[in-house]
């Protein structure tokens, strides 16, 4: 995903030691400026260092990560995913940088046909290969980028083009960012070669990142997505959804550093609305606590509540046709029993451990537990009859900077 987050100068990662172990000139100057009385006098000298709000990254990064994911419902383990992935960030010169990633998913297990009926589950084993690349030009106070992304599996293919731009204010404390992306999907179905559908999505995003104080940075993003095409699930019956879907997401993020403990509170809130009738609120908190010797422990908490889509059907069936047909169902009726379109609340608990091995190498491990329940919905009605849905995933990562 091409991040729309413009890098405010102050959030550039320049605190790691250089690979050679030598202090960089900027670090030496910064250290000298910490001498009492020197700072105000030296401000004009420091300004050029800070002026490159959109400067290219100083170090290249190669990272690999492995995901192991499993979800289940009472009485049935559903989907297992293993996904090795790789990431590259490469400064080409002071004006250009390249960012790319690739992932290969292997998905196996059962998917529900309607609601949470175990009897209707179908077994599956599929592979997905996806990748993206972004080329960025870094100016004095601005940057622009172009990106491509592609995802391929046996019954689905997606291609995306994106472009973004960012501008920083003269004091480098505020960065405005904007982006646009166009995605084209092709949808098929295993066992139904006649199905060949399309979906197109245009997405625009605008936002601002602001250094609020010496210990606070905040961001506000607003994104709109206009989509049309095939949204129904070819593996569920009956399942027919509207052929247009417009989405809005408003995201607020705020990071606060506590100098006394060295900890950082990372927080975010998102409001989401779409023309399917879904409304959702998401709050996420993460506490990053340094433990010394380059070790950092970060517990996190995430909560989401969503209202059901207006065409979601509860597990009440037509008296004549029976399960899985909703009352008064006729062919062509808009309706879906997909649990993901239901009204529910979801809670996630995570724990991440980061270890900086040396100036070049770092490792991380994250365990996340996740659960959805109908009665965890806050702010409105939940959907009745949903089985509890749980998931757990583990991520192991290793990265190298040079």
């Amino acid at each position: 995903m091409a991040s729309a987050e413009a890098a405010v100068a102050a959030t550039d990662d320049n605190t790691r030691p250089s690979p050679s172990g030598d202090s960089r000139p900027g670090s030496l100057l910064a250290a000298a400026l910490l001498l009492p009385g020197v700072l105000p006098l030296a401000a004009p000298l420091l300004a050029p260092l800070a002026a490159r709000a959109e400067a290219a990254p100083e170090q290249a990064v190669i990272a690999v990560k492995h995901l192991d994911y499993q979800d289940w419902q009472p009485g049935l383990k559903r989907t297992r995913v293993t996904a090795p992935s790789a990431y590259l960030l490469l400064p080409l010169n002071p004006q250009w940088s390249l960012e790319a990633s690739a992932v290969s998913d292997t998905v196996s297990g059962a998917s529900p046909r309607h609601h949470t009926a175990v009897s209707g589950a179908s077994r599956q084993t599929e592979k997905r290969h996806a990748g993206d690349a972004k080329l960025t030009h870094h100016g004095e106070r601005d940057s622009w980028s172009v990106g491509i992304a592609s995802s391929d599996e046996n019954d689905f293919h997606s291609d995306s083009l994106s472009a973004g731009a960012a501008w920083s204010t003269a004091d480098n404390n505020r960065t405005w960012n904007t982006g646009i992306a166009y995605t084209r999907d092709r949808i098929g179905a295993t066992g139904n070669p006649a199905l060949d559908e399309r979906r197109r999505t245009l997405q625009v995003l605008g936002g601002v990142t602001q250094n609020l104080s010496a210990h606070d940075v905040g961001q506000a993003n607003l994104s709109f997505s206009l989509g049309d095409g095939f949204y129904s699930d070819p593996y569920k019956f009956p399942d027919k959804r509207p052929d247009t879907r417009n989405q809005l997401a408003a995201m607020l993020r705020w990071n606060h550093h506590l100098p006394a403990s060295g900890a950082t509170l990372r927080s975010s809130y998102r409001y989401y609305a779409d023309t399917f009738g879904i409304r959702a609120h998401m709050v996420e908190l993460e506490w990053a606590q340094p433990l010394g010797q380059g070790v950092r422990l970060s517990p996190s908490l995430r909560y989401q509540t969503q209202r059901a889509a207006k065409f979601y059907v509860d597990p009440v069936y037509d008296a004549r046709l029976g399960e899985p047909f909703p009352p008064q169902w006729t062919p062509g009726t808009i309706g879906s029993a997909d649990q993901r379109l239901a009204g529910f609340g979801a809670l996630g608990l995570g724990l991440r451990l980061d270890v900086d091995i040396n100036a070049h190498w770092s490792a991380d491990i994250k365990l996340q537990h996740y659960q959805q329940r109908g009665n965890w919905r806050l702010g409105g009605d939940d959907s009745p009859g949903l089985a509890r849905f749980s998931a757990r995933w583990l991520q192991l990562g290793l990265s190298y900077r040079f």
Partner: protein
Amino acid sequence: MKPTCPHRFLAPALAIALAGLGGCTAFNPPQPWERGALAKPEMRLDGDPLQQRFDQHVYTSKENASGGYGIGGGGCGCN
């Protein structure tokens, strides 16, 4: 359908509280020499790029909300 949850406005209230916490932070944009804490890796808003891709992929395939983090990225048949 169940009766309306008495905590109807809890989620928006949480959001307002979060924004309020941010609002309690004095708006005092730092000078260039005051940005040491802001430069720490854990202060980056986008965090670990691969973790963010994984996590968002899971959430968008199991929930219906998405967006707000960035743009682009390939779609997935899982949603």
